[in-house]
């Protein structure tokens, strides 16, 4: 084994000591972000698997749960997030070209859209709170059969209509059926809040990341030789977007009954 002196590394100010070249740094950093996203896929994947198992097991209750969450808001949120991925991609592209102002503008737009997403999620969560659909009884009682004036019809009724049972149910049996489904619907909402909550947490982290990034674009002389922070933040943001692309159909869309 022989030793040979290294070539003098290009002393880009952003080159850190453990890497020999900017290219190696960029490749390693990007690879590292992909590996990290892989771990995130495994985490959400575990949650999704559990959700799907229960969806098969408690089909009716989960249908009822899906029906009761607002698909319009969910759709708007999907558009918002896709839009934010567009602005993020534009930010990366601007950074790549060295257009720092442009990059910062697009990052700000991404943040605005991300905040809009969280705001809409807040509206949806508030709706659930008001309808007493938050499981566990910590934020008020859980009541799948409650009726809030002007809001979605009660869940048991929805299911009953779906199965054309409503005229054949005795009042007592209807109540019993509702209780069964209510308990299972509570599990649906547990997954709803766990999945959207974990996703929202990642969004919040994403927003913090974007704030940091705004500063970095200025400080670090982002340009064609070095735009890795923007690229990696973009990867993270796109990932969070893709998780929502899975969440939306899984929670809102599959086997949805027609709401009134």
């Amino acid at each position: 084994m022989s030793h040979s002196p290294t070539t003098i590394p290009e002393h880009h100010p952003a080159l850190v000591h453990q890497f020999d070249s900017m290219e190696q740094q960029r490749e390693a950093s990007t690879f590292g972000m992909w590996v990290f996203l892989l771990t995130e896929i495994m985490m959400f994947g575990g949650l999704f698997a559990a959700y799907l198992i229960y969806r098969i097991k408690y089909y009716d209750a989960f249908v009822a749960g899906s029906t009761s969450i607002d698909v319009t808001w969910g759709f708007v949120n999907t558009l918002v997030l896709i839009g934010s991925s567009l602005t993020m991609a534009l930010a990366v592209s601007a950074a790549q070209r060295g257009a720092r102002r442009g990059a910062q503008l697009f990052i700000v737009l991404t943040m605005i859209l991300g905040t809009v997403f969280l705001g809409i999620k807040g509206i949806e969560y508030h709706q659930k709170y008001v309808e007493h659909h938050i499981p566990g009884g910590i934020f008020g009682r859980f009541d799948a059969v409650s009726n809030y004036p002007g809001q979605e019809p009660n869940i048991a009724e929805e299911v009953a209509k779906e199965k054309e049972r409503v005229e054949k149910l005795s009042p007592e049996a209807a109540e019993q059926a509702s209780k069964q489904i209510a308990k299972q619907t509570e599990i649906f909402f547990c997954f709803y809040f766990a999945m959207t909550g974990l996703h929202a947490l990642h969004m919040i982290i994403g927003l913090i990341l974007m704030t940091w990034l705004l500063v970095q674009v200025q400080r670090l002389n982002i340009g064609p030789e070095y735009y890795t922070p923007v690229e990696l933040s973009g990867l993270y943001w796109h990932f969070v977007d893709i998780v929502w692309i899975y969440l939306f159909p899984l929670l809102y869309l599959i086997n949805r009954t027609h709401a009134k």
Partner: protein
Amino acid sequence: MSTAAQTVKPVMPARHYLNDNYGIRSWLLTKDHKRIAVLYLFSITFFFFIGGIFASLIRLHLLTPNGELFQADTYNKMFTMHGVNMIFFFLIPSVPAVLGNFIIPIMVGAKDLAFPKINLMSWYIFMVGAFFSLYAMVSGGVDTGWTFYTPLSSGFVHTNVIVMAVGILFAGFSSIFTGLNFIVTVHRMRAPGLTWGRLPLMVWANYAASLIMILGTPVLAITLILLALERGFHIGIFDPKLGGDPVLFQHMFWFYSHPAVYIMILPGMGVISEIVTCFSRKRVFGYAFVAFSSIAIAVFGFVVWAHHMFVAGISVYSAMVFSLLSYAVAIPSAVKVFNWTATMYKGSVKLDTPMLYALGFIGLFTIGGLTGLFLAALGLDVHIHDTYFVIAHFHYVMVGGMVMAYLGGLHFWWPKMTGKLYPEPVAKLAALITFIGFNLTFFPQFILGYMGMPRRYAMYSPEFQVLNVLSSAGASILAVGFILPALYFTWSLKYGEVAGDNPYKATGLEWQTTSPPPTHNFDVTPVVTEDPYHYGAEEEVTVVP
């Protein structure tokens, strides 16, 4: 061998990573992988002794069949705390975070890991997890067993399950970041000439373990989160009274926890490859087979989880598939054992302390691994599942295997990490004491298990007492074997002989730099032109031992 040898008495290098910078800040804000390894060394040694204290109390309590030392609740907390601490806060980080962090960048010829700040962050995350775990312990403990089966853990016990789950969650994230760092480093930062086929087997083994870390640990994370939600908010994900499925918890839990045992053992196997080659002065037998067996273990390790559930209510057909795959995962481990043994053939063997630990590993891991075959045999597992047979099996692979590998590695690289030699005669004695104490402690447990003594029993039937006493006696000897290294390693820091760059005349990039290494590892980036373990080259300068 040369007759006109020049002998040079080794001296400590003037500047190295330990004295480059002084002060608490230089340690707590370090980005140097070597210093981070030392930080981890302190942390996990602390938890090893905590877990060891619980083990000692358990063995004391089990001297009598009627459980007179502690109340049942206290005993239940002790075996839980023993398991949680040993697994999550000692075994999983042991070789990767201490030895791997220190050695792997040097082994691949890099100045540091790919992401030094993330490396430091992983230690802080570990410490946060450690804090939660300690808090859970002192404020009442946890008594669910380290497996946290539901609905017991989600709805019945009144202990600090959520706090402990959070602690384990953090420890898991620490392990994810360590694994991520290793993977990127091995892929992107190898020195010129260092192809995958020239990597030391320590790197292969840690790489394979890192794959498991990043893929499996997130599933544990989500399982613990769901458990905490269920416990905190009374939701019925795993609790049947609320509509949940307790067997689903077991599937999700074991999906991580089975690969976790391979996270624990693979790095140890990497250490063994390094030691056996060095102390046989011979290249490893069947390099490619040993390297790929690490990957095979990682892959197969992911598809055998339900062998923990043969009597838990899975279908017979499902059980058969998992049993078959469990035999498949045993084969690569067997291949390694045969290759290590063959490495010694026609070698030039010196039984220094690291080699003693390595040989102990090979013997005890063989026994432990073979007893895994008992458990994988469906009809037999019905009888021995959840008995002391299982306990004996996993202690053979984890303590007789992994802890001995860790100690062997610590002894092997101690001169490199500290620049000092530990006292060889005492170390050999400690290794022998550990080996004897270990077998005396755990071999009787195989018999106890087959006789039917269930695990996690605070009281047991009187006919089991003789073997329990034997086991506890062995434990007291084992404790001595573990305490001695702590003492003489500390002693060696001040009074040990200076080691010199390469006291064992080993190959490998880490031995081509000073002991201790400089902060930046290499003055010039090495270029690798030879296979690993290229023993058989003559040494021109002998170093006075």
